[in-house]
């Protein structure tokens, strides 16, 4: 699928995640992020990064809640509110993780207009630093395991850190060289194997736009179902339209993808 469509999908899902604290929208969105990752992730070591993002998400919820619990004047409502805000951040993180495992951030870089090439490069590097690091860690650990180096939990950390940093530096240099070789930043750009905007891409883009439109409409209407009231704690209402908009975002998982799309990394 076209990287632009993936970017649109990720932005839409992230927008839906940050505009609600209703757990009955956030949990399905978490499921959507998971199923899209499971169906569409690229093969390679960066596929593991989704799990890391999920772990970070759970840590976010715990931290956000713990911050409130240790404050004086604790109420049940504030704990619930904090947990829901943590959940919102966690869902945002998993959506980001899905985007990283599903699409290549440097694919978007190729789409950026020449004038915005450098900011786009910075954005792509920033976006991909977590999955690249995770991939580097798994590569280094595999190499260590093959050489019979004992993998302790904490003692192997320095032995792990140096090669991981080195890999990062090396990757950056290789990236810069390869981009230079392809004429980036010189006004001359080659189009080697351009991404195709397939019908699947337009379907996903349309679905994402529809989901955003529904949520914007709900926001403008001040739909009370978007926010779960913690003072007093009430059973959150669920608007079927907004729920449908959330579920529509899982469309990339159900559309069949061609074999070439699967193997390209």
């Amino acid at each position: 699928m076209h990287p632009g469509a993936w970017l649109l999908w990720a932005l839409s899902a992230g927008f839906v995640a940050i505009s609600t604290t209703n757990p009955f929208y956030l949990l399905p969105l978490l499921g959507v992020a998971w199923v899209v990752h499971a169906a569409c992730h690229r093969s390679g070591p960066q596929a593991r990064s989704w799990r890391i993002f999920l772990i970070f998400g759970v840590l976010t919820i715990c931290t956000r809640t713990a911050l409130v619990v240790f404050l004086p004047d604790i109420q049940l409502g504030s704990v619930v509110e904090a947990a829901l805000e943590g959940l919102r951040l966690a869902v945002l993180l998993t959506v980001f993780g899905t985007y990283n495992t599903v699409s290549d951030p440097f694919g978007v870089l190729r789409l950026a207009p020449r004038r915005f090439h450098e900011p786009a490069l910075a954005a792509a590097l920033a976006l991909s630093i977590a999955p690249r690091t995770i991939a580097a860690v798994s590569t280094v650990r595999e190499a260590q395991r093959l050489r019979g180096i004992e993998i302790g939990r904490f003692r192997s950390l320095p032995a792990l850190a140096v090669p991981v940093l080195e890999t990062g530096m090396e990757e950056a240099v290789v990236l810069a060289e390869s981009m230079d070789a392809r004429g980036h930043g010189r006004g001359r750009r080659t189009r080697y194997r351009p991404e195709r905007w397939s019908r699947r891409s337009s379907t996903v883009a349309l679905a994402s736009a529809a989901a955003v439109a529904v949520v914007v409409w709900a926001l403008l209407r001040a739909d009370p179902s978007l926010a779960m009231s913690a003072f007093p704690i009430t059973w959150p209402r669920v608007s079927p339209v907004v729920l449908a908009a959330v579920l529509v975002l899982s469309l990339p998982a159900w559309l069949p993808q061609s074999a070439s799309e699967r193997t390209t990394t």
Partner: protein
Amino acid sequence: MKLRSSLLGVALLAGALAPVAAPGVACAASSAALVVSTGNNDYTYCVELGGSSVNGIDLIQRAGSQHGLQYKLGYGGRAVCMLANVGASGSDCFGEHPYFWGYWQGDGSGGWKWSGSGAANITVRAGDVNGWSWGTGDSGSSHPAPVAATYESVCGATPSPEPTPPPDRPKDRGPRETGAPEKPGGARRGDGSSTTGAGDSGGGSQDSTDSVEDTAEDEPEHEPKEERAEDSKENHKGKEPRAERSEVAVVTPSPSETPVTSANPAGATAPEPETPVAALVALAATVLLAAFGVLLNRRRDGASAPDRPMQQQRTGT
């Protein structure tokens, strides 16, 4: 012997505690007045404070649990977003800015003072009057004040810790104090409309109940033997006023319990509790998506395993 002496000790202790416990009960029945002015409607609530320390936000929560006041708080429960279905009910607590809920404190004579600090930092004591008004303006001079109210006009009786007799409206006070002991918990009509019509009619009904009470209490004492000598029908007749009395006694305080001055009651526009079908659908969808994800992941892992040697071959050659 030991048992008996210990029992005696307990009895003495109980006797010593009894007079201490009585004011404790009176303290627990202390209340404060809460006035909510939406601009169109004015609601007044007489709120039981209970034992613990109560701030301005707690007072709203108590009015919600005791009298069904609709409310929504934000910013960690320190800001008021919505009262009586007026205000922001969405995710943005101040979504209707510049309109917001202004917090006022009663000066004891019906007037209002703009509160200098947030409701969560104000301790509410028995006999206090708290007011919330919906409008624009961020100072006491520009924000509309709530409807004029005193503790007495909302709760009826003077607060128990400070038993100062109310100087105004002795006419209104008279029959009520002689009548049946009134619960101070019930919220009553506000000042605005009850000055003439409601007050007079209330007094009238109170008088009628008093007279009914008198006859009902007198009759059984005078006539039971005569009636027993006569028919059972007569006996039923003799019971009728008693039944009527109990009915009246229940009915008369009930209009005073509705916390409404206007025709539109606070609970009328309250949203009815929704059946959580959509929420269950959402949860079911989450579970299904998670299961599908696991399935897809497993299938992809299985499918990609035979692919790998081919890829390696391709890269190798």
